[in-house]
């Protein structure tokens, strides 16, 4: 009888080996799928870094050596003023005087003005990091062939000047300062509106609402639906309601400010608040749901009212989860561009925003604007701006993880 059971063992073991081989093959395919995603992420980051630094060939309209024998940085304020007066038109000089008197400006400021208005460096070619490092001689040869007047230097597009200068149509001088401030103020307005309303709605849905009531189930389904609506539709909503219908309030006209339309920081902040509200509510709901029922029952047993239980027991316990959810929602809001385009972020303003009723621009808008310009050097500053954005996002997410670890340790 033993021989019957094991008579075709070799055939069976052959088939078994084939099945295992197929299994191993598919396991490698599944692993490859995961790997492709990670490779894509790495390639993305590397290609951005690749464009953030490199050799630049720039030509000066007026050679600094022709202006003065000494290097320009070492000249005194009065010598710089003389250069300005010799080389600029009367109109331009008067405009500069009106902005700030020449005599009052610092030497560094005058030096900047001389460089920008007299020397006028123009970038004629820029190269990526990898070729700049590996192919340096070939690039130098090509530049000396095509642009004999140009000088080549290695440039980090992401530097302190980039962070502190405002917009400019010259890629060499442009910076993200106004965009950073715009994004920052917008996020503050967003959090101010979205956090209380979102947490309030989550508390209502989890603590007060009974699942049997139709309107409560409708609110819940509604929030789940809203979380899936594309961000551009929120932009259209913001345009229709905050910019147009409530234009009086959002432009500040009701408070007597001179403003002709509602495309202000306030509209953008409110639109973003609506955008992240569903995500915030869903995350806060999960955090509140995680609070054990025994905690609530104990409070009720001691005679606490419902609000006292929530305020003194449920909320402190779930605070870390709520804060993590808020930070995740905010990191989504920082990167969103489409609603801002529709609500009317400017792409070229040079003044920092002064309050909720000012025109504004934001970091993603600048990235979008610079990416779509035809000249190559704008891609470089777009890459630098992307790095700034990614660093901001990374720090937010790291803060969220730290918060989660710190608070969850405390509650156990």
């Amino acid at each position: 009888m033993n021989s019957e059971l094991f008579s075709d063992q070799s055939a069976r073991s052959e088939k078994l080996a084939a099945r295992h081989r197929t299994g191993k093959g598919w396991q490698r395919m599944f692993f490859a799928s995961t790997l492709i995603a990670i490779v894509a992420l790495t390639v993305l980051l590397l290609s951005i870094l690749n464009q953030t630094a490199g050799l630049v060939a720039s030509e000066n309209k007026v050679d600094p050596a022709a202006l003065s024998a000494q290097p320009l940085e070492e000249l005194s304020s009065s010598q710089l003023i003389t250069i300005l007066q010799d080389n600029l038109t009367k109109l331009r000089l008067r405009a500069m005087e009106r902005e700030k008197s020449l005599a009052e400006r610092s030497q560094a400021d005058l030096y900047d003005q001389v460089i920008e208005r007299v020397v006028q460096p123009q970038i004629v070619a820029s190269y990526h990091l990898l070729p700049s490092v590996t192919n340096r001689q070939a690039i130098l040869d090509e530049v000396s062939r095509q642009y004999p007047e140009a000088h080549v230097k290695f440039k980090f597009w992401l530097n302190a000047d980039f962070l502190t200068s405002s917009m400019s149509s010259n890629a060499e001088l442009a910076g993200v300062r106004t965009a950073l401030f715009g994004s920052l103020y917008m996020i503050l307005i967003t959090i101010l509106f979205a956090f209380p309303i979102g947490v309030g709605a989550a508390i209502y849905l989890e603590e007060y609402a009974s699942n049997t009531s139709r309107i409560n189930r409708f609110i819940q389904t509604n929030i789940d639906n809203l979380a899936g609506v594309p961000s551009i539709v929120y932009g259209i909503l913001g345009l229709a309601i905050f910019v147009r219908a409530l234009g009086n309030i959002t432009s500040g006209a009701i408070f007597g400010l001179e403003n002709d339309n509602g495309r202000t920081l306030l509209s953008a902040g409110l639109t973003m608040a609506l955008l992240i509200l569903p995500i915030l509510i869903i995350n806060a709901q999960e955090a509140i749901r995680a609070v054990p029922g025994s905690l609530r029952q104990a409070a009720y047993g001691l005679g606490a009212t419902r609000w006292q239980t929530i305020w003194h027991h449920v909320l402190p316990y779930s605070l870390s989860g709520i804060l993590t959810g808020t930070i995740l929602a905010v990191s989504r809001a920082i990167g969103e561009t489409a609603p801002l385009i529709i609500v009317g972020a400017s792409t070229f303003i040079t003044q920092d925003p002064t309050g909720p009723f000012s025109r504004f621009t934001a970091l993603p808008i600048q990235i979008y604007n610079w990416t779509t310009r035809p000249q190559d050097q704008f891609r470089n500053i777009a890459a630098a701006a992307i790095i700034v954005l990614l660093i901001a996002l990374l720090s937010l997410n790291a803060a969220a993880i730290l918060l989660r670890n710190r608070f969850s340790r405390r509650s156990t």
Partner: protein
Amino acid sequence: MNLRKRRRLGESIIQGFLFVCGAISILTTLGIVYELGKESLLFFSSPEVSLLDFLTKTTWQPAIGQFGVLSLVNSTLMTTFFAMLIALPLGLGAAIYLSEYATPRTRAVLKPTLEILAGVPTVVCGYFALTFMTPLLRAIFGAQNVQIYNTLSAGLVMGIMILPLVSSMSEDALNAVPRSLREAAFGLGATRLETTVRVVVPAALSGIIAAFIIGISRAVGETMIVAVAAGSGPRFTFNPFLGAETMTGYIARISGGDLAYDTPDYNSIFAIGLLLFLITLGLNFLSRYLVRKYREVYE
């Protein structure tokens, strides 16, 4: 002492305030439907636009009065198709690997990386499509065949961006299948691949299909990648190497421009926005319906 429950005014006020917070979400939906509906009605009531032409014609040139939305819809579908070509198989494969094959240590490294990919802003992905993917495609297929703005590169990068979403939702569905099913299959002598393909995936199918549909809905509504990389002129074509504007790209371009408020050109963005909203709403409803109807419930 009166032990009856005393009505506290403060409690009622707080409860009312919290209810209003919850109701703001309803106001949002009502606002979306009302505004889109009202402006779309304005759009369709203007003399040069007819609803039938809108839905069936394929030329979209508002300047000369042509309002056939099919060219925009077609290019949206094309980018969605290429995105799903990448996101669905690779997302499901990654989910299967993470849920069935990966050791906890590997999972602890791979999952956060996927979440980072999911967190990259879409405008950065658009930049990547324009500066890396398009030159790559031009190098592979020839610069004379592939235009600088084309739907293929936007679709591929969109697929990479949606991959983590599909993967994490599918993985949740796969993890929800109880271990006992897998153990039973192993007990009958199945290999791990056979267990996964013949037992676990069919058991989690409703969740996986829901993930696919949410991925499609996300691809349809995606704006920045197509606005940067897919081109800014509407074109009805099936050639992925040519540029063609999608619904979302069109809305972004027009509202970023200088058109006056009440022209048919401008109001068309509301009509297209309404169409977009209805499509994504329909897809989300469909996915939730499928999950509810076909979900296997285990004790």
